[in-house]
């Protein structure tokens, strides 16, 4: 079973996710908007998934533009 190492970035609001999405898109950082994994929160939220390798650049680019609430490991098969 192959494991792909990815990180999820959680934000304060859906609007914040949309800001982050736009920033990442403009800078060509590969990302995906996904529902917040159930083990992190049971509310109907969305978050941003990035490849673990892109995490640092994503964080740098987002700094000062939108506040990242938390970052979590995510392994999907």
């Amino acid at each position, binding site marked *: *079973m*192959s494991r792909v190492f990815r990180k999820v970035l959680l934000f304060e609001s*859906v609007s914040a*996710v*949309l800001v982050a999405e736009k920033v990442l898109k403009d800078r060509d950082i590969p990302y*995906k*908007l*996904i*529902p917040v994994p159930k083990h992190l929160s049971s509310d109907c939220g*969305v978050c941003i998934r990035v490849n673990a390798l892109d995490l640092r650049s994503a964080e740098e680019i987002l700094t000062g533009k939108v506040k990242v609430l938390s970052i979590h490991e995510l392994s999907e*098969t």
Partner: protein
Amino acid sequence: MAYTIDARGLACPQPVILTRKALETNDDLIVLVDDTAAHENVKRLAINMGFVVEEEQQGGETRIRINKVGACTHAAQGAITPQGPVVVVIASDTMGRGEDVLGGVLMKSFLHTLTQAFPMPDTMILFNTGVKLAVKGSEVLDDLESLANAGVNILACGTCLNYFSLKENLIVGVVSNMYDISQTMLGAGRIVHI
């Protein structure tokens, strides 16, 4: 003699797909799994289809015996066994009415969830602006592709693609027509309309 599927080491949803396919032609089946998610998903599939399930742990592996014996009793107890295929109808590129930006977010979220859902739909029908989800540049192509790879039949309304001049840009699914779309809907066991 039970038919045996060795699903050890296979990634989800492969064990479920193999089991579902085998149950179309076999009433007595043994599925070997070595993964908790595969174990649960295969078990749920069999129960939802009205089969009786017995499990046997052998080290890190589980041997799941699926058969029809007593299945009628089980169905009579109220197991949900939809007759006919599950069809998801997507009539727009946004989920819900009111605020399109939010609707776009919800649609991305929904389609991603669908790739991990169980049971997976048998068919998805995209029409009106829903076809825009399956064309070049769509942000949900990867999710639609993984659904298609898992065996979901994706139909995109040809009239709609034509209206938006997107026929050449269709990446996932097949160009369909209203005859197929209406027949698929009428023949569905369950329709989920988004």
